[in-house]
C-alpha cells in the first residue's frame, strides 16, 4: 500500500526487501533512523556498534560469510570508517554490501559540512544518490545487485533533506537470496602487499566497467524540456531545479554519482544551449564536466557552503521569486539548550565556577559551551577531548595540569575515547578525564551503547563497567560523582586536579528525558525569601527566569532536580511535598 515514508525508513525498507541479513551501525544525525527502522524487522540481525569503523568491519565480515549486509553512518562517521572502506574496495564482497552515509549540508547537527562524494571517488567505490523516499527505497534494493554484479561495496549517499523528509513509497515483499558459500580465497581477501598489488588493477578495471554502466543505467536519466537551458543535478537539488523550471529546462538527473558517466554528459551538453550544474557542497559534477572540456555554470554562481532551496536556485539563475513580508523588529532567537534537569548542567556549572580549561567532545554536552555556563574551550571530533587534553598537558605541563580537563559522554567514550585514555595511561600525562555517563547516547535520540546494558532492540546485553575498564588501564584514581550534588562535584574536581597522577571522574546520572527516570514535583519560589540575586540564573536552566525582579519557575519544564536550590542562599527555591 502506498504510504508516506521518511527517507531513512524507505531506505531501511529497501534493504529489508532485498534480503539484508546483518546490520551494524553507529548513530549519527541524519542517518540514525535507517538502522532504527531496519531493527524493527525480526528477520534482520541488527546492532549498534561502538563506532563506524567497527560497524563497517562487521558488515564486511557478514558479506565475506555470504550474506547481504549493511552499515549506516553520518558523513563524519565515514572518516572513522575510512580505513576498512578503502581496502574493502580492493577485496570486493561475497554477499552484497551496502554502506549508507548521510551528509548534513547546512550543519543542522554536525561539526562540519564535508562532502562524502570525495570518499567514494578516493576509495573507488560506486555511490548512489537518491532524491526522495521512493528512490531511497528503490536504490537500496538495486544497490545489492550492483554490489554483487561488480564485486564491490556500494555507498548510498543521503542528505538531511532526503533522510528527514517523507514522500510516497509503495513497498513490496522481502526476498532473501541464497547465502553465497564462503570459499577461502587468500589472493582476494588477504590484503598483504603481494596480493593487494594484484587487486589494484582489478579495482581500476572495475571502475572502467562501472563508467560504461553509468552511461546507460537506470539511476541516471534525461528529462528533455526546453533546450535553451540544460541542468545536470542530483539528490535534493534535482527537486529544487524541477520546482523552479519544470519543463522549461532539460535536466540530466544523476542517481549514480560515482563513477560519473562521460558520453551521457557530453551528449546531453550537445543538446542544450547553456549548461548549469546544480550541486550542494563541492563542485564534483562541475569539475568532471570541465575535465570533459565542457563549458559550465556552477560554483561561479552557486555557493559551496550551506544548503540550497528552490528560491536560491531561482535567484542564482535569474528567475524572479514571489514577494514576502517581514517584521522589522529583531526577535529573540530560540537556540537549543540543555534540558531542565539535564545531569550535565551541575558538572558544567562546577567546571565554570572553577574556571577550568575544558576540552570537549561530541554530544548534547557540547551545549556546555553556551552562555551562561560557557564551560568549554574546544570541540573537534569524536574522542578528541581525551587525546587533546594529553597533548595540551604535555605542551604546558604543570601550568595546565591543575586546571584542564577533558569531558566526554559515555557513548563517545566507547566510540573513540578509550584509545585516547590508553595513551594517557601509557605515555603518562597528569590529565583529568571526566566521563559524563548519562546511560544513553543522548544527542541522536536515545540509542543504547556498550555501557547501558541493553541492545538495539531493548533486550539485555553485555555491559561494560567503566570503573573496571579505567582501572584495568592503570588508573588508580577513578572517582564517581552525582552531578546533581554540586558540593561533591566541586570537592572531587578539586581533588583530582590537585592529584599528582592521571585520573578519571565519572559523572553519573541518567538523561532526564529517559522514560524510566522519575522526576520530582516542580520547585516553587518562596516570594518572601527571594531577593532577586540571580544566583540560580547562573545555571542557564530553561525552567528558571526572572519575573518582576524575582526568580520564577516554569512548572511545565521543572523536574525538581534541585541543583538550583543548592545555589540559593536564601531558601527561596523550595521543594513541594510528594
Amino acid at each position, binding site marked *: 500500500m502506498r504510504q508516506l515514508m521518511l527517507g531513512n525508513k524507505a531506505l531501511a525498507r529497501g534493504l529489508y526487501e532485498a534480503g539484508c541479513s546483518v546490520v551494524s551501525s553507529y548513530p549519527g544525525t*541524519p542517518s540514525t533512523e535507517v538502522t532504527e527502522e531496519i531493527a524493527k524487522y525480526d528477520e534482520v540481525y541488527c546492532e549498534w556498534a561502538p563506532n563506524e569503523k567497527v560497524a563497517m568491519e562487521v558488515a564486511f565480515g557478514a558479506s565475506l560469510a555470504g550474506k547481504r549486509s549493511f552499515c549506516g553512518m553520518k558523513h563524519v562517521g565515514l572518516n572513522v570508517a575510512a580505513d576498512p572502506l578503502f581496502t574493502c574496495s580492493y577485496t570486493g564482497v561475497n554477499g552484497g554490501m551496502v554502506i549508507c552515509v548521510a551528509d548534513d549540508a547546512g550543519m543542522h547537527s554536525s561539526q562540519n559540512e564535508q562532502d562524502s562524494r570525495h570518499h567514494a571517488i578516493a576509495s573507488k567505490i560506486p555511490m548512489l544518490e537518491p532524491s526522495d523516499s521512493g528512490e531511497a527505497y528503490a536504490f537500496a534494493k538495486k544497490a545489492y545487485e550492483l554490489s554483487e554484479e561488480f564485486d564491490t561495496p556500494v555507498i548510498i549517499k543521503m542528505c538531511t533533506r532526503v533522510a528527514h523528509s*517523507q514522500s510516497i513509497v509503495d513497498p513490496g515483499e522481502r526476498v532473501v537470496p541464497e547465502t553465497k558459500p564462503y570459499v577461502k580465497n587468500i589472493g582476494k581477501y588477504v590484503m598483504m602487499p603481494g596480493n593487494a598489488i594484484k587487486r589494484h588493477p582489478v579495482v581500476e578495471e572495475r571502475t572502467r566497467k562501472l563508467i560504461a554502466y553509468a552511461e546507460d543505467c537506470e539511476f541516471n536519466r534525461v528529462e528533455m524540456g526546453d533546450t535553451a537551458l540544460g541542468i545536470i543535478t542530483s539528490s535534493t537539488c534535482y527537486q*529544487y531545479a524541477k*520546482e523552479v523550471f519544470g519543463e522549461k529546462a532539460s535536466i540530466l538527473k544523476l542517481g549514480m554519482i560515482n563513477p560519473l558517466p562521460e558520453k551521457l554528459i557530453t551528449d546531453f551538453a550537445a543538446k542544450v544551449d547553456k549548461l548549469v550544474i546544480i550541486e550542494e557542497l563541492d563542485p564534483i559534477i562541475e569539475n568532471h564536466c570541465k575535465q570533459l572540456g565542457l563549458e559550465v555554470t556552477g560554483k561561479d554562481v552557486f555557493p559551496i557552503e550551506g544548503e540550497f*532551496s528552490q528560491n536560491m536556485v531561482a535567484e542564482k539563475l535569474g528567475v524572479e521569486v514571489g514577494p514576502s*513580508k517581514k*517584521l522589522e523588529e529583531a526577535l529573540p532567537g*530560540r537556540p537549543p539548550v540543555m534540558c531542565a534537569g539535564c545531569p550535565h548542567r551541575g558538572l558544567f556549572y562546577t567546571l565554570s565556577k572553577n574556571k577550568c580549561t575544558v576540552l570537549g567532545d561530541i554530544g548534547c554536552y557540547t551545549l556546555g559551551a553556551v552562555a551562561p555556563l560557557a564551560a568549554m574551550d574546544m570541540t573537534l571530533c569524536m574522542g578528541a577531548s581525551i587525546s587533546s587534553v594529553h597533548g595540551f598537558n604535555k605542551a604546558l605541563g604543570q601550568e595546565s595540569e591543575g586546571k584542564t580537563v577533558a569531558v566526554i559522554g559515555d557513548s563517545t567514550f566507547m566510540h573513540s575515547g578509550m584509545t585516547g585514555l590508553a595513551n594517557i595511561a601509557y605515555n603518562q600525562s597528569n590529565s583529568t578525564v571526566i566521563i559524563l555517563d548519562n546511560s544513553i547516547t543522548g544527542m541522536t535520540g536515545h540509542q543504547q551503547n556498550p555501557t547501558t546494558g541493553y541492545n538495539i532492540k531493548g533486550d539485555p546485553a553485555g555491559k561494560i563497567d567503566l570503573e573496571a575498564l579505567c582501572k584495568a588501564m592503570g588508573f588508580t584514581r577513578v572517582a564517581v560523582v552525582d552531578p546533581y550534588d554540586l558540593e561533591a562535584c566541586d570537592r572531587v574536581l578539586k581533588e583530582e586536579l590537585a592529584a599528582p597522577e592521571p585520573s578519571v571522574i565519572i559523572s553519573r546520572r541518567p538523561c532526564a528525558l529517559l522514560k524510566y527516570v522519575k522526576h520530582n514535583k516542580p520547585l516553587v519560589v518562596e516570594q518572601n525569601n527571594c531577593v532577586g540575586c540571580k544566583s540560580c540564573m547562573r545555571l542557564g536552566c530553561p525552567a528558571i*527566569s526572572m519575573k518582576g525582579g524575582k526568580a520564577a519557575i516554569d512548572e511545565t519544564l521543572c523536574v525538581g532536580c534541585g541543583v538550583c536550590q543548592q545555589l540559593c542562599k536564601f531558601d527561596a527555591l523550595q521543594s513541594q511535598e510528594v
Partner: protein
Amino acid sequence: MTKNIMIVGVGGQGSLLASKLLGHLLLTEGYDVKVSEVHGMSQRGGSVVTYVRFGEKVYSPIIDKGEADFIVSFEKLEAARYVEYLKPDGRIVTNTQEVDPMPVITGAMEYPEDLVGKMEELGIAVDAMDCLSLANEAGSAKAVNIVLMGRLSKYFDIPVEKWEQAIADCVPEKFRELNLKAFALGRK
C-alpha cells in the same frame, strides 16, 4: 498547484503528530504529499519547523520564503519568526501561548509585545486562539496540536468526517475521544 503548510513551534510541543495527521489525510485525499522536518536538536527546546506540501506533483521537500499558504504555530513568537515564509495572501493560525526563549529567560531581551497586532499591521490574516485552554478543556494540555488542526480544518474543503477519520487512524485508541473533542473545540 502545490499548497504549502508550515508547522512551527518549540521542540517537544507535538508538531510530529500534526504533520503525521496532515500527511495521512492528504494522502488519503489522493494528493502527492511531502512532509519534511529536521531532527537532531529538536528535543532541546529549539525552534522547530515542519513543512507539509501537497498537490498533483510535489518536488521540493521544503517551503521557501513567500510560499506558505498557511503557517500553523504552536507559539506566538515562532509564528512571527517565520512570517517571511508566508504568501502575501497566506494565513497564520496560531496558539497565543508564550514560551520564553533563552535570551528572554536570561533577561538579555524582552518577549516582544503584541505580536499578533504587529503581524496584522503588515496586512496578514492572523487567526489567534488560546489553544492551551481548549486542549485542557478537552482533557490534556498535549492536545494543543489537534486543537490547531481543528482550526486549520475550517480553511479546507475536506469534509469534517475525513479529518475525524484521519485522527482515528493516527492516534492510539485510548486517546481518540479526547483528540476528537480537541479537534471539535478548535474548529468551533
